């Protein structure tokens, strides 16, 4: 479904991603793990054209992805970005509606809204508050909720558990699994390696801009040296 081949990208002189190839198949949860600065965020940004790649190709359903983020999103790829990036001067409700911008069906929007409110009741409580005044964790929930307002084919989550209370973190992983069961593919970047591996079908390990290992969670978990080296135990 998503195929990234030999992708490289750089910030000026700093090469952040070099020669990376990954694949996400339909209905798969794929995790990308790696230390700080490994280039995970950069990879996701390249996939949705939020950053220009210097080399390589990105194919979605066999076709090259367009080079404006909004066109990529129209193909059915959604990114929950690092650092939440909510609309601070829009209300919570408006933030969610912005997430549903591409959805034409009013009933579906309503349904999704109810669903998000059910998952994160605090958002319903705060629906008329400016996004910028939410607490960090609430903002994270809003960012995830916003992505759930439409049903993409592929959803990419950049550290979705960041700043969330443990009880919510577990919930997030459940949500991801339930997304999979509705047929969405998931590309997940996570620091919480064990939790991520526990729900994913396959995983890549990145280090200093390169993929150093790829495999199923079972394979990876077996290799303790590897885990030690890249993820810490």
């Amino acid at each position, binding site marked *: 479904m998503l195929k990234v081949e030999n992708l490289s990208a750089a910030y000026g002189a700093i090469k952040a991603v070099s020669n990376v190839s990954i694949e996400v198949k339909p209905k798969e949860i794929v995790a990308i793990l790696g230390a700080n600065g490994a280039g995970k965020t950069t990879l996701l940004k390249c996939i949705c054209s939020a950053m220009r790649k210097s080399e390589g190709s990105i194919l979605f359903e066999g076709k090259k992805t367009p080079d*404006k983020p909004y066109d990529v999103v129209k193909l059915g790829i959604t990114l929950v*970005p690092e650092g939440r990036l909510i609309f*601070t*001067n829009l209300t919570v409700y408006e933030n969610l509606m*912005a997430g549903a911008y591409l959805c034409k069906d009013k009933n579906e929007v309503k349904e999704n809204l109810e669903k998000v409110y059910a998952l994160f009741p605090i958002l319903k409580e705060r629906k008329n508050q400016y996004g910028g005044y939410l607490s960090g964790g609430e903002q994270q929930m809003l960012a995830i909720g916003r992505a759930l307002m439409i049903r993409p084919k592929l959803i990419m989550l950049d550290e979705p558990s960041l700043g969330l209370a443990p009880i919510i973190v577990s919930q997030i992983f459940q949500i991801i699994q339930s997304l999979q069961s509705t047929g969405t593919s998931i590309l997940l970047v996570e620091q919480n390696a064990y939790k991520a591996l526990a729900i994913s079908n396959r995983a890549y390990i990145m280090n200093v801009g390169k993929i150093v290992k790829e495999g199923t969670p079972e394979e990876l978990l077996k290799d303790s040296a590897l885990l030690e080296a890249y993820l810490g135990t």
Partner: protein
Amino acid sequence: MFIQQLVNGISVGGIYALMATGYALIYSLLGFSNWAHGDVAMIGAYIAIQSVLLANMPLPFAVIIGVAGAGFFSFLNEKVAYKRIRDNNSPTMFLMIAAMGLSIIYQNAALNLFGSKFKIFPGLSATSFNMGNATLGLLDVISLAVSLASLVILDITINHTKLGLGIRTVASNPYTASLMGINIDRYFSIVFLVAGMYAGCAGILLGMKYTVYPTMGNVALKAFIASVLGGLGSVRGAIVGALIIGIMEVMVTAYLSSGLRDLFTFVLLIVILLVKPSGLMGVQVEDKA
């Protein structure tokens, strides 16, 4: 006399308001003071007046062409300058500086193209109504009506439609908006087009009421002040601010001192800002710690 002065004030405010509408629209979208707004208005006025003078076009057509032309130039500003500045990730104040540059370009281009002569719309008699012992000009009524109508239209569009939501997301954070699948480039273009058309309207009315000349766009300064007073980015605030400034100016001139008019206006402005730091109707969502 008081009634007449009040009418005068509202009429002056009406012109400011018309200018302020488009100005506030751009501010609300990009968060910068578009100092070229008044010059776009001037261009609109020139296009209209030249269509009448040179091409002998009937006035309504000329007005439509002028409005469209102003919209086009505003759109051009966005494409040629502002868009690139945004793409560079330059601080928003660069947009303002670019706008100043554009303003210089437009004024001097107009000077070279049309000369420094002042022009008037031909065949336009100053129709006015007598109300008791006060007179009110037809153009004043029109400009006030246009700005109020535009207020209502903009208010509904921005706050209650999907288009408006799109505009506001783009305003809030273009990058994130594009991640929502919103075609930000198109929205920017639309907003500049619309703001430019408002400017065109303002310019043409201004030209009909007064005269058309290369630096006529400088009234936009008053629009700027009005929208700060009303709260930056709020179209409603801009119009209220414009009326306040207009009435204030006239009243100070009439009852205090015509020489110190601007002094009073600015002191009022400062006092209001000290009490309400984001204007009468502005909101400022601050960065949360």
